[in-house]
């Protein structure tokens, strides 16, 4: 398994899998497969995929440690960049379909609505992470500072969950929110447990 993940194939396969939702959405939009309100479907689907990629990227380290599949670490950056890829699409879909790409309307909406503000903040916090996700940036920052910066992803996870919760609160539809909260809670909880048990040793 470790050897499989280390092959030259692992990255192209991850790239292909990560792009599949995007390819499907583009196809579905042009083939009229998104139902009566395709704009809403696109805004929601890109948000869903951002959350899913976020869960995946947060799962890499726990999986690596528990399974000993050290080669998983090689794929983490790509999954992280997929979080950013889908959040950019999500922001674009919202800006275009809901706001007609009117910058003033978008700015007003962000300022006026906590639920939009929280989502936008998550996007803003992700931006420096995406921008420093190449080797030269790691060297320039130094590993320690780079790692500290990239811990922002935990805050992003919290903000993303709050954004999703607030969105669904309008219709009191919390079943899916609870699923994502349980997954992210487990993945972050594992880190706290790991950290505190290390301290005791």
């Amino acid at each position, binding site marked *: 398994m470790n050897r499989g993940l280390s092959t030259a194939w692992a990255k192209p396969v991850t790239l292909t899998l990560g792009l599949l939702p995007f390819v499907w959405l583009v196809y579905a939009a042009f083939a009229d497969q998104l139902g*009566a*309100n*395709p704009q809403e479907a696109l805004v929601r689907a890109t948000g869903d995929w951002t959350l899913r990629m976020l869960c995946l990227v947060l799962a890499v380290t726990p999986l690596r440690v528990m399974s000993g599949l050290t080669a998983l670490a090689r794929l983490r950056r790509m999954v992280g960049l997929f979080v950013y890829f889908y959040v950019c699409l999500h922001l674009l879909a919202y800006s*275009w379909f809901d706001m007609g790409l009117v910058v003033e309307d978008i700015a007003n909406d962000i300022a006026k609505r906590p639920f939009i503000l929280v989502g936008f903040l998550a996007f803003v916090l992700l931006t420096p992470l995406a921008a420093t996700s190449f080797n030269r940036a790691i060297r320039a920052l130094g590993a320690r500072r780079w790692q500290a910066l990239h811990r922002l992803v935990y805050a992003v996870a919290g903000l993303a969950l709050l954004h999703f919760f607030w969105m669904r*609160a309008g219709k*009191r539809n919390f*079943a899916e929110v609870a699923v994502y909260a349980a997954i992210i809670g487990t993945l972050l909880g594992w880190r706290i447990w790991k950290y505190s048990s290390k301290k005791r040793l």
Partner: protein
Amino acid sequence: LNTKASTVDGANTMEKPTAYKDASTYNNYYEFGTDKADPAVNAHTLKTSPWTVEIEGMVKKPGKWALEDLLKLSPMEERIYRLRCVEGWSMVIPWVGYSLGELIKKVEPLGSAKFVEFVTLADPKTMPFVGSRILDWPYVEGLRLDEAMHPLTLLSFGMYGEVLPKQNGAPVRLVVPWKYGFKSGKSIVKIRFTDKAPATAWNKAAANEYGFYSNVNPNVDHPRWSQATERRIGEDGLFAKKRKTLMFNGYEAQVGQLYAGMDLKKFY
């Protein structure tokens, strides 16, 4: 369904009706699921016959009306109404029915009656989501008596010339075109006349978001999104611009006087 043209002012918008497929597959009917596509998939279990609507409360003639008798109460009219959902989308739907006022006149409300409460079916055996905690079932809606008596307020039995699809609220529902869609209760089983404003389903769930009146109003935003614009379902492809939402959903000339002097920011 046999219909005659409606002579009620404002009852026939010239706008292009939404495709039947969209109107019958993109629904909010939480008793059958929270996803818009769920009701069309799940509502086949709804049993619409026999069906009775009970009239109770402050009326001279309370009692049970069989659906067959309701269908014969007044001539069926086709009314092409705009439908504006609180979520920010809209449709144009040719409904079939008659003014609710026709029924109200028959049952003779007492002078003390000021409000009308509409209770809809909540049958856990045929409605899979009635057990969920999303809302306090049954779904209850309400109108002021003068709103209920307004000729545009429609008791509807059909759409697009046919009997209502189950996911659209068969066999009998309300359509109040100048209010957000959720004010128009589906699959009605009880109409109650009262002197107090009824506790309505969404108002009980989130009072700061869904008021009793819930008139379509581009100037009063929902706490989490703007109500200034709306997306007309099925209009002009993916990159169509949203259209401006009209005061009282474009029915201001007909219903504006019902709210004369009221602060619509307060009574949202």
